C-alpha cells in the first residue's frame, strides 16, 4: 500500500515537473514561421535596447577590428591551412565544449539531449581522435545539441536584461553575456592549457580566427545587403538564438543529395 502511494507520488511529481519545464521551454520557444503572427505584429524583435548609442559605438569598433585585423589574419590563415584541417580544428574546440553543454541540458531538464552531448563527447574523443573528426554526427548520426548557460538562465526565468554589443565578441544580451562568462570559466577549467592567461588568450584567438576563416565573406555579404547593419545584426542575433530545435538539424550523410 505504502509502496503504491510512493510510486504514484513520485510519478505525479515527475509529471508535474516535466510540465513546468515544458511550459517554461514553450515561453522561451521559437516562432513558427508557418504562423502569420510571426510576421504581422513584431517587426522588431521585441527586445529592449536602451543603451543603443553605446552599442552602436562598440559595433563600429568591432566592425573596424574585423575589417582591419581579424579578417586579414583569417584570410591569410585560410591560405596557409586547407579547409579540411580548419574544419578539424573547429571540431576539436567544439568537442571540448560538450561536457559543459551536457551539464546545461541537465540544468534545463533536457535529459535526452544531455545524454546526447556526453555520448558525442565520448565517441568523438575516442573515435574522432580527440575530437578532430565528428564521428558522432557522421557515423552514429547523433546530431549536435545546442545548449548554453544563457539558455539555462532563460529556462530558470531570468530575463534578457537588454541588448549588449560586447567589444570583440559582438551581439549578446546582459543575461547571455553573463552566461558566456560562466561558460568560459567552466570550459577552461578543464582545458589542458589553463595555466596562464597568455596561453588561454592565444587559444581563444586561434579559435576565433579559425571560425572566421570558415565563414569568410559572410560578414561583408550581410553588411552590403543591409540598410542598417547594426539593426540587421541585432535582428539576426535574436532570430538565430530563438530558432527551434527543429531547425538545428546538423547534416548526416544519409540525406539524399540531388
Amino acid at each position, binding site marked *: 500500500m505504502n509502496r503504491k502511494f510512493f510510486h504514484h507520488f513520485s510519478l505525479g511529481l515527475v509529471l508535474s515537473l516535466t510540465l513546468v519545464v515544458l511550459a517554461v521551454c514553450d515561453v522561451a520557444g521559437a516562432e513558427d*514561421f508557418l504562423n502569420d503572427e510571426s510576421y504581422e505584429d513584431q517587426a522588431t524583435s521585441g527586445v529592449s535596447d536602451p543603451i543603443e548609442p553605446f552599442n552602436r559605438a562598440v559595433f563600429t569598433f568591432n566592425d573596424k577590428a574585423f575589417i582591419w585585423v581579424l579578417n586579414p589574419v583569417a584570410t591569410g590563415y585560410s591560405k596557409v591551412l586547407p579547409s579540411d584541417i580548419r574544419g578539424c580544428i573547429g571540431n576539436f574546440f567544439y568537442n571540448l565544449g560538450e561536457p559543459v553543454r551536457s551539464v546545461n541540458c541537465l540544468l534545463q531538464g533536457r535529459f535526452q539531449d544531455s545524454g546526447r552531448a556526453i555520448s558525442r563527447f565520448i565517441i568523438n574523443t575516442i573515435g574522432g581522435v580527440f575530437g578532430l573528426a565528428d564521428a558522432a554526427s557522421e557515423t552514429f548520426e547523433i546530431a549536435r545539441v545546442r545548449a548554453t548557460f544563457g539558455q539555462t538562465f532563460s529556462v530558470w526565468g531570468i530575463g534578457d536584461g537588454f541588448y549588449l554589443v560586447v567589444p570583440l565578441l559582438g551581439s549578446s544580451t546582459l543575461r547571455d553575456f553573463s552566461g558566456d562568462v560562466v561558460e568560459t570559466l567552466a570550459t577552461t577549467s578543464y582545458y589542458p592549457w589553463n595555466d596562464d592567461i597568455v596561453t588561454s588568450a592565444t587559444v581563444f584567438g586561434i579559435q576565433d580566427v579559425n571560425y572566421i576563416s570558415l565563414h569568410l565573406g559572410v560578414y561583408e555579404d550581410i553588411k552590403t545587403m543591409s540598410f542598417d547593419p547594426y539593426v540587421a545584426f541585432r535582428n539576426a542575433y535574436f532570430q538565430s538564438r530563438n530558432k527551434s530545435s527543429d531547425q538545428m538539424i546538423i547534416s548526416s550523410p544519409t540525406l539524399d543529395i540531388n
Partner: protein
Amino acid sequence: MLQNKYTVFLSFLLCCLLMGLVFSQSAVSASPDPTDQFRPFLKKVIDTLADPELKTIPKKEQGQRIITIVREHFDFREMSKRVLGMQWRNLNNKEQKEFEDLFTQLLQYAYIGKIDEYAGQQVAFVKQRIKGERAEVQTLLVDKEKSVPVSYIMLLRGDQWMAYDVIVEGVSLIRNYMEQFSEILRKDGYSGLVQQLKDKISQIEKEKMNA
C-alpha cells in the same frame, strides 16, 4: 495483468498509426507535395549557376537569367507584402508595384554575388511540414567544410507552391529586412524608404557589376 496492459497499449498504438495514416493520406491527396516541386526547381537553379556559359554573358543579364528561373517558385509580391507588414495596406497600387520592383531587384543582386562564389555546393532535402496552405521545406546547402541549413517557407497558389521567405541558419530574410524597413519608415516615411532602396541598388550595381 501484464498481458492485458500490453494489449491495451498495442491497440492504442495501432489506433494512432491508423489515424496517422488516414490523416497523412488525406493531406497528400489534397495538395501537391512541396518537396516534389522544389527538388527539380532547386536543381534547375543550381544547374544554371554551375553552367560555365553563364559567366561569359554580362553581369546584368546573368542576374536576369537567374531571377527568371527563381520566379517560377518565388512569389516576390508576397515577399514585398510581408516585409512591409501593416504598412503595405497604406500604399496605393502604384506604390505597391514600385516597392515590389525595387525589392525584387535588391534580392536579385544578392544572387549575382553568389554566381561567382558558386563552387559546387549541393542541396540536400531534410524534411517538410505542411500546415493548411503553408509549407516549410528544410534543406541543407552542403559545402566541403560546412553545411548551412536553409528553409523555404511557401504558400500554395493554385497547384504551385510559391516561396515567400528563406530562413538561413534560423534567420528569416523577410523578418530581418522587416525590422530595418520599419525603422526607416518610422523615421523617413515611404518616400525615404524608396530613396534608400534606390541608393542601395545603385551602390551594389557599382560594386558588383564592375567587379
